[in-house]
């Protein structure tokens, strides 16, 4: 989540709750030979909505890896640590994981602010895999990114609207922080390329109690053919509900850039007509790899399994990357790992992928919303990440 599901204001309020959970992984007594992974997921705060899925997916991957002989022959031990509080708190946990638990690797599925705090703390001493969809451009040493970047989402989304929906005019609305702004830079480039025109661009304050009546009315006045939303979490839900409430859903197509299964549940069936999403993972991904992953997941956790979504599935992908990368490098040395990562083939939760420049070229999926379910109707193979870090 380059997308901060936990606005700062809430962080303060949830900090206390967060500290209480910080110790969760501490009682996992690891053996000396274990390959220890400090695994940052959201156990507290609003993003802990994803916590159960993150944990379940990570456990599934660890179980598979251990059956296959572990990482570099050592059994994997996951130390789940809360990243749902303030970034500084998470960074403190990172210090503890390095000094006391002496972890071999960090994996993080959390927002970008926390990633930056962690990177500043870890200082490349321990490898760090950052897994969720994010704004791109992260090239700190010994950091490996798995998530979709703006170019990967923007190109297929804009092309779809311009070519298949015949959109000439576009309206962009997003939360006011790095990911939406970076995404919109890309989108504007592609809109121009397809001969379209951006008739409006606006941002709402991130983490504020936003309401969207005014924005929706403004959009109605601007009469665009299509709207591209880079809103996250509750803002995304509120916007899409207001949009449909004002009856604009019938005439204007919407692509929402961070619309996953949980958010769509919030948007609801009556507000999801003519709404599309473009991501690297959907629970309904039609690929063979995606289907196999889902089947394994459901076999392990049954019908009451936590909802599969991109945040969560990324944890599974991250562990697959860890195994492939460490096994190939045969060492935890930063230079060897970085070298091993280049051209490294591994499986995410939805596809066979290759790591280049410490980023991943991904298969992207275009999905339309049918009620509260996604229906993937198009797969775009191996879309470039647009970020190439030094290797």
């Amino acid at each position, binding site marked *: 989540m380059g997308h901060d599901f936990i606005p700062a*204001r*809430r962080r303060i*309020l949830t900090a*206390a*709750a967060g500290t209480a959970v910080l110790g969760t992984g501490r009682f996992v007594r690891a053996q000396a030979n274990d390959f220890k992974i400090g695994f940052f997921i959201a156990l507290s705060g*609003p993003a*802990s*909505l994803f*916590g159960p899925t993150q944990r379940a997916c990570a456990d599934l991957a660890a179980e598979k890896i251990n059956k296959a002989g572990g990482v570099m022959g050592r059994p994997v031990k996951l130390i789940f640590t809360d990243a749902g509080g303030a970034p500084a708190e998470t960074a403190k946990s990172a210090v503890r994981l390095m000094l006391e638990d002496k972890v071999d690797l960090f994996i993080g599925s959390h927002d970008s602010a926390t990633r930056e705090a962690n990177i500043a703390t870890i200082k490349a001493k321990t490898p760090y895999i950052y897994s969720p969809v994010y704004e791109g451009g992260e090239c700190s040493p010994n950091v490996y990114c798995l998530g979709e970047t703006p170019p990967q989402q923007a190109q297929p989304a804009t092309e779809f609207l311009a070519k298949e929906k015949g959109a000439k005019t576009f309206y962009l609305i997003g939360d*006011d922080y790095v990911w939406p702004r970076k995404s919109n830079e890309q989108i504007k480039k592609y809109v121009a390329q397809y001969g379209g025109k951006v008739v409006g661009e*606006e*941002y*709402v*304050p991130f983490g*504020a*109690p*936003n*309401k*969207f*009546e*005014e*924005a929706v*009315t*403004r959009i*109605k*006045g601007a009469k665009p053919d299509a709207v591209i939303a880079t809103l996250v979490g*509750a803002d995304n*839900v*509120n916007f899409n*509900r*207001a949009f449909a*409430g*004002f*009856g604009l859903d019938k005439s204007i197509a919407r692509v929402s850039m961070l619309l996953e299964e*949980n*958010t769509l*549940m*919030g*948007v*609801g*069936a*009556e*507000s999801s007509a003519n709404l599309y999403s473009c991501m690297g993972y959907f629970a309904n991904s039609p690929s063979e790899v995606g289907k196999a992953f889902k089947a394994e997941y459901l076999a392990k956790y049954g019908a009451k399994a936590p*909802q599969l979504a991109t945040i969560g599935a990324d944890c599974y992908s991250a562990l697959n990357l860890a195994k492939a990368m460490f096994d190939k490098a045969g060492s935890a040395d930063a230079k060897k790992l970085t070298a091993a990562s280049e051209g490294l083939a591994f499986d995410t939760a939805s596809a066979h992928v290759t790591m280049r420049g410490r980023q991943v070229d991904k298969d992207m999926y275009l999905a339309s919303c049918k009620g*509260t379910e996604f229906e993937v109707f198009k797969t775009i193979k191996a879309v470039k990440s647009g970020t190439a870090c030094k290797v």
Partner: protein
Amino acid sequence: MEPVLVAQALNALFGIASLAIVALGLAVVLGLLGVLNLAHGELVMVGAYCAWVAQQNGWPYLTAVPLALVVCGILGYAVERWLVRPLYQRPFDTLVVTWGLSLLLRKCAEAIFGLGYKSLSEPIGGTVDVLGATYPRFRLVLIGVSAVVLGGLVLWYAKSRTGTRIKAMAGNPDLARALGIPVARYASATFIVGTCLAGLAGVLIAPLVPVQPFMGLDHVLMSFFVLVVGGLGSVGGLLTGSAVIGGTNSVVSALSDSTGGYFAVLALAIVFLWLRPRGIHART
């Protein structure tokens, strides 16, 4: 008139009405009992979950109203009796206690319903034409219901004997007690009215927002601003506060963007705290 202008005017009205109905319970409890109930937003959330439960079970939407009133009423009674009553006249302690309560309620909601977003379908869907502008019907209903609830409360408070006694209690509890007014019972009742109004607000806004354990935080913040600007202890203050905060937010949002609207609200709140800390309609 331009349809866009009409729609934006209705948006401002809707902003004011939804803010007033959410802030009402908070204003009652803070204005009359001097208790800043930080769990107010969570009670709104409880009301919203009541609406969701009603809709999940296929009950008519109106059944959510008594359900929310009963649940929030019982909660209000228990909270006043065992948490707030021992702490009257100790504002900081009530602040801490209600903050703890808000965490507890949020965790309870999480335990019962999970963290996922719940969506309700609008009980009165579709749009209507108002002077050429297409406006969602349910939002118009919300404006109407808020006006009725607020108006009813104003009339009752001004005209009824109970209202007079509550005024006496709020003005000088010791003197009221000496006059034979059962202050403890009135305080309890006032608190319950406050929590019930929160629950009612939850039922009203539930179809428009994602229902989730953290939703209370979003709604309570603006309510505090309303009280800062409007002042405590009168419905007039609440209305003025809602009109100033909600109206400014809507108008500036419509003219520029949401960032401008939010900035204007924050700036207003600061100016008021600085120059007029007791608000526009301070009770003397």
